[in-house]
């Protein structure tokens, strides 16, 4: 069905278009001057100004492993995150904790824990699925490297990004 677009009847002043053009010029001039004197602030000049201070709380950056206040790597190598990871970016090789260890009843720890940051899609499912509160998405967003190998975060790197997490459930500590 054809639609008739209503055309307004313009009076002679509107048909000259000059007042409208002048009004338009005034608007662009206002924007120009405001930018010239840095009164408008829209652009973040990236390498000089970083996102860090401006990221929202819910931002999902690089996934990382955390230690708790006892210094224990919280991951128990259950491999749930490896299983859930949609792009299969996580690879875990479990190791056994020796009998003499203080946390011997945990039984397993990750001998190797690799996250391929080329594949990671920052979905946060690993954090969600983790029963041990061991893996978290931190606010690191500038993950760079020259080769694919460099883009794989090994356990050390993951722990370095993660750091120590306070206020998590400490279910493996000795009963009081």
């Amino acid at each position, binding site marked *: 069905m054809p639609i008739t677009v209503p055309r307004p009847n313009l009076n002679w002043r509107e048909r000259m278009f000059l007042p409208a053009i002048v009004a338009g*010029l005034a608007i662009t*001039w206002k*924007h*120009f001057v405001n*930018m010239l004197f840095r009164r408008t602030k829209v652009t973040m*000049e990236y390498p000089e100004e970083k996102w860090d201070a401006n990221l929202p709380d819910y931002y999902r950056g690089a996934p990382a492993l955390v230690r708790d206040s006892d210094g224990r790597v919280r991951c128990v190598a259950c491999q749930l995150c490896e299983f859930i990871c949609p792009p299969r970016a996580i690879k875990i090789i479990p190791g056994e904790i020796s009998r003499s260890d203080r946390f011997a009843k945990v039984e397993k720890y990750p001998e190797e824990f690799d996250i391929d940051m080329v594949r990671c899609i920052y979905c946060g499912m690993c954090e969600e699925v983790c029963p041990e509160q061991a893996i978290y998405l931190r606010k690191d967003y500038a993950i760079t490297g020259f080769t694919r190998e460099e883009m794989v975060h090994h356990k050390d790197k993951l722990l370095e990004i993660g750091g120590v997490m306070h206020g998590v459930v400490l279910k493996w500590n000795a009963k009081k």
Partner: protein
Amino acid sequence: MDYFFIGTSFLKIVCLLAFVLGLMNYAVYAERRVSAFMQDRLGPNRVGFAGLLQPIADAGKFLLKEQFTPAHVNHVYYWLAPCLAMMPAVITLSVIPFGSTLFGVPMVIADINVGILFVFAIASLGVYGIVLGGWASNSKYPFLGGVRSSSQMISYELSLGLAVIPVFLLVGNLRLTSVVQYQIDHGWLIAPFIGDWMNPGKWLLAIPMLISFVVFTIAILAETNRLPFDLPEAEQELAGGYHTEYASMKFGLFFLGEYIAMITGSGIITTLFLGGWHFPGIPDGSHGPIFGLINIAVFFAKVCALIFFMMWIRWTLPRFRWDQLMRLGWLFFFEIALVNIFIVAAIMAFLPI
């Protein structure tokens, strides 16, 4: 052989060309920064302080890129078109008086007695570069750009010519230096009442001169393919228009031509309506070379102001459709300019100017 004349002319040509090329480069930079600022962006600000070396980087890029010629083009005209697009703008510079005198040498390369006719004759050739470029590319979008360019030319060229007739009615001479001299003696043509405040004829004259100025400025915008009349380019509709098939320095020459045409057009507007190199209170070059240099600076300051105005217009107004441009040219500006001539003639006949 007048070796002094030849030598000074050569020097003037080299210096003016070098200066205008530099100015053109920075006009491109200014265009990008001004457009950015008007859209709340920052524009190129990384190369050098505040991005001031960006034009040099761009020029280097243009020169070092591969000279690629598509297989389906008409080779002769494809190569000819960029030169034809640039040359008219450069040649037109030669008759514009860009300063008073420097060490007794008049600061105009060719002070010919058909000044403005020469400008119109040469500047109209610029359209051939565009039409040829569009046609020789043997591709749909450039072809449409070339066709639009010719339709645009027959729309504005008439009002362009008619709008300046009042100026020459007043001056009585087509020589551009005498236009400037008239404005020094009788006040700038955009405001002829300055210095002669009690003369009602001068106040009355200001109205048709203002109309003339507006019509001529709009026609110059069309002549230089600037928005709101950049129909041959029309990035959004024609994917770049007549220079779609061009790359590297051949595209650079089109670009160069467009921006030098802007400078030339601003120079003509300045000469005809804004007093040329004259600024009230500043004597001409016969009082010392320093004043000669100041005169040149005043001229180019006016040119830069006009270039800024053109950019301001560009980033404010949307593009006209080609039938709208034809309507505008044939039904409004043609008539306005024609009536304007009679008004000025009547004022000159019945009132003391």
